[in-house]
């Protein structure tokens, strides 16, 4: 990048398991709350914002171009333009890089980059047969035609297509995400026990971070609509009582016979939103602002859909080449925990010379990641993975933790369904 992108500040909602506390909020509502809170906390003049870019994966049917709906529900000015971006699980990061692109091409100066997801509200759909029946009913003019259309009905037509499940399935390789994780378990021969241990650590670290108030620094508590009888202050996926024994009891979820991936060592389906206020470093300087941090550089990379979990390795390798940075420059690393096994596979690939040669077009391995610097406040296994918002959250989390540790440079990276990866190099000074 020709200049660093300044992240003035950021905020996120609590992340809660889908179908639970936050089901009364649409993705647009969650996004609006995060964006409004961002603007109120930064007290940055709304009229100086040029555009809002929002990442969202399961775009709700009632909110076409959800970014614009979010802007208006958040109370931003009517004339603020807004558009929605989609790079599946990296949508939240895409919002940031798209903002950077607009800013550094001179088309905008101040942007809101946000991400939101309400996996509670992904609809069930009618299948093609029922859809066809409705269509012929609508076309029917006479009673006879109507009866004929109706007579084609079979109860099996009512079997819904589960939108959530379809969304999590790669239509090209035909695999649901969990099965791509099993591919990596086999490729890197990662046993179930190691995955469960990693999952447990995620919960332990998340619980500690929550108890120490570190997570609260990035969360705005949410009085829960529609009745406001309670307030949600924390992420609700963290299991304080999680044990290896309990994890070991779970049956593999995706490959019931030979698999290793369970609901316990995978991330949960989650609702949540996050928002950042961004501008060029020079603009921030000229306004005398003290940004939370900067995006030094970023990269996206693609690979086979059935190995999508290795996306972070591909993307980070590309980022290192693009920025001239080295793995050891990063004093903090967030690899999104779509699946415990997928993070473990990445860790092995990062330090493998063979992998580098075979897949990354490099002579040496990118370099090992110190497990002590990885996902130090827990990851998606405990905190959940609201797909459209996670990219934004990772950037926020890394910057806040770098400041706490008095370190400068961190990496936020995630895998992307369909076979991509995203990696952001972040700095605080």
């Amino acid at each position, binding site marked *: 990048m020709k200049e660093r992108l300044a992240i003035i500040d950021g905020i996120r909602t609590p992340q809660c398991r889908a179908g639970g506390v936050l089901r009364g909020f649409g993705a647009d509502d969650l996004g609006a*709350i995060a964006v409004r809170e961002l603007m109120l906390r930064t*007290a940055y003049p709304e009229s100086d914002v040029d555009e809002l870019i929002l990442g969202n994966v399961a775009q709700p049917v009632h909110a076409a171009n959800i970014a614009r709906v979010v802007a208006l*529900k958040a*109370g931003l000015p009517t004339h603020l333009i807004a558009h929605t971006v989609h790079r599946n699980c990296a949508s939240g990061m895409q919002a940031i890089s798209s903002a950077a692109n607009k800013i550094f091409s001179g088309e905008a100066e101040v942007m809101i980059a946000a991400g939101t997801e309400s996996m509670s509200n992904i609809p069930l759909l009618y299948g093609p047969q029922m859809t066809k029946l409705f269509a012929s009913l609508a076309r029917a003019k006479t009673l006879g035609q109507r009866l004929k259309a109706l007579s084609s009905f079979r109860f099996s037509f009512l079997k819904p297509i589960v939108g959530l499940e379809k969304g999590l399935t790669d239509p090209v390789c035909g695999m649901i995400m969990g099965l791509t994780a099993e591919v990596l378990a086999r490729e890197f021969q990662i046993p179930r026990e190691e995955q469960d241990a990693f999952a447990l650590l995620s919960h332990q670290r998340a619980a500690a971070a929550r108890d120490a108030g570190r997570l609260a620094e990035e969360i705005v508590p949410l009085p829960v609509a529609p009745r406001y009888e309670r307030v949600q202050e924390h992420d609700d996926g963290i299991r304080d009582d999680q044990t290896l024994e309990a994890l070991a009891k779970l049956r593999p979820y995706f490959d019931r016979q030979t698999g290793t991936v369970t609901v316990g060592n995978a991330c949960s389906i989650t609702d949540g939103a996050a928002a950042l206020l961004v501008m060029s470093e020079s603009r921030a300087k000229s306004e005398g602002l003290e940004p939370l941090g900067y995006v030094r550089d970023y990269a996206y990379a693609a690979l086979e859909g059935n190995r999508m979990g290795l996306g972070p390795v591909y993307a980070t390798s590309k980022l290192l080449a693009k920025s001239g940075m080295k793995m050891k420059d990063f004093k903090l690393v967030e690899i999104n925990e779509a699946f415990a096994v997928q993070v473990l596979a990445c860790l092995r690939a990062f330090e493998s010379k063979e992998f580098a040669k075979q897949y990354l077009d490099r002579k040496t391995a990118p370099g090992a990641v110190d497990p002590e610097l990885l996902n130090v406040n827990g990851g998606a296994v405990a905190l959940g993975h609201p797909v459209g918002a996670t990219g934004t959250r990772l950037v926020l989390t890394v910057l806040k933790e770098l400041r706490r540790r008095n370190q400068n440079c961190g990496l936020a990276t995630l895998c992307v369904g369909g076979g991509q990866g995203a990696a952001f190099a972040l700095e605080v000074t």
Partner: protein
Amino acid sequence: MSSAWTFQEESSGLGHLTFDTPEMKVNVFTAEAVAELSDLLEDLAKRNLKALAISSGKSSFIAGADIKLLRTVTTTADGIEKARLGQNVFDKLAALPYPTIVFIHGACMGGGLELALACDYRVVSDHAKTILGLPEVQLGFIPGWGGTQRLPRLIGLEASLSMILTGKPVAAKKALKIGLAHVMVATEFMQAEMERLSQDLAEGRPPRLSRRPPGLVARLRKAVLESTPPGRHLLIGQARKRLLEKTKGLYPAPLAALDVLEATATGDIQAGLQMEAEAFGRLIVTTESRNMVRLFFIREALKKESGVETDVEEKHVQRAAVVGAGVMGGGIAWLMSHCGIPVRLKDIDWDAVTKGMATAASYYQQLVRIRKMVPDEVALKMHHISGTTDYRGVESADLVLEAVVEKMAVKQAVLAEVENVVSPHALIGTNTSSLSITEMATALKHPERFAGMHFFNPVNRMPLVEVIPGAKTAPATIASFVAFARRVGKTPVVVGDCPGFLVNRILLPYINECIWMLQEGIAAERIDRLLFDFGMPMGPIRLADEVGLDVGAKVTDVLEAGYGERMQVAPLLKRLAAEPDTTGKKAGRGFYVYEGRKKSVNPRVDALRLELAREHALSARELDDQTILRRAIYIMINEAARCLAESVVEKPDYLDMAMLMGTGFPAHHGGLLAYADTAGIPGVVETLRRFAEEFGPRFAPCERLEEMAAAKTLFYKKNGGTDNDG
């Protein structure tokens, strides 16, 4: 003088009649306008027109008869004559030998609707301001120009009852649905449609109904209920029952309207018109009607009142903050969000903030239940409210209202915090029911931008806001708070900074007095029943429970501290409020015990009463109904006169309106001071003197009352006029 009506005839035989009252903002039927129309219609009847189109030359249709004209009526005979006059004019209109069509955009009220009803076809614009109604009962009389006759004959008895008995107008869409209007057109195309529809009518093509005919069930229901004597009997009976429940029989106008409708819904219209005119004549001269008309004028005057004498610029509030998310804070946040103003709601922890949002959500829920809103709209409005536990997001507000607990020290501390974070130009207000604004302002560096803003509970239902300037409040601040209150749909009254301000200063002695009587052995239910029947929305003892004994005791303490002996808190109140879990309705236990929907007298009240009687060697005494009523009301009159003498409020008019809106003082009495006038000031003073000897010096009539009794003056001018007749 230019005329109100202009007539133009086109070569096609289409006539255009336009109403435009000279030198007035809105069209009203002045005496001249009625006479002119009468002459014009005589002439029109002789012309050979194909059709006549009637419209308004102003931006709205017709506001009704000129109320000032009605106030010149002094006898029933005169009233009947005025009614007959108008009826005859509209009879002429209805009898024209060619079809008539009227185009309605904007308010079409009273006489305006009666004119429209005398036409053959009514076309309405779909504008939000287009409303049609017969509001006469709200002024204490009934429609007198054929409204009670032509409306039921057009839309049926049931729909007419709901329009005439409540006086509430219907919107254009509803008018179309109930058959009051034939056609609804897009406002933007009104002019073009007017030309097209009139031309069509002149060429023999009447307008096509733009509504679907009612379904079978609706038609059957109407046939059974309205076209059979038992059906009509049922309708009228139900309407009467509802009416008596609502008005307790204190308001003669809707009852008279019901009688007229019952007697004349079928049969000869001329006989009906005669009966309508007689009822109109009888009602127009009643005290109730005079009182209600006067209140109408006060309300109009208050709408224009800026609260200050100098010409200052009001500050336009773009974002607001409320500090303190209790029932009041939550209610105020609701109000702001409802009016589209973004509001930051702050309290010390998230549970408190959430409770405030729950209050707001519950007020929205009430609107959903009565179908004024749908859940999606509520969700959108709730997005205007955001919570916080620190001052982030409060800094950018240009109005901060503090609504924390009623303790001077706490309020001052919070206000000082607020002033530290907001911009130097932000308005700062406090929602308090009794604490001194001037004293509170000492906590601020810039007291000139600070004032009191007393909302009443529940915020979503109580229309009044007391705006209280402190000693150092700037005029622009007062004007800004007044404008803000009006913007959120409330009626602001500027009052002086004395303990209790205006409404509580007058109301609490009344509640207190009733508790004194309770202590003397008068049954709570009896006191409540007597004042309820007087017209108060609920009895004073129940009101004390509703307000909360804790809240009430706090305010009465402030009053006692401020005014001394005459506001001495009834010992029974102190004792009862000190009992555990006895804070009134919210705790299920106060003067009454509340179990589900039932309430019964709290046995502790009697025990405490006997305890007090023993301690002070008192014996129970018997009072007659009149004495009970007078002790309750006259103590308010006495305090109200003091408020006027001390200029706590500018005029008797505003005092009466504040009591009406703030306490539900019955409108048919015209307000507290109007009631005093009617009762007779010398008599009131005499009674107060007697009470002072018998029940305690708190009744001693104030100087102002003594002077008035001596000089034989009234609070209002003798003829019922007010200072602000336009």
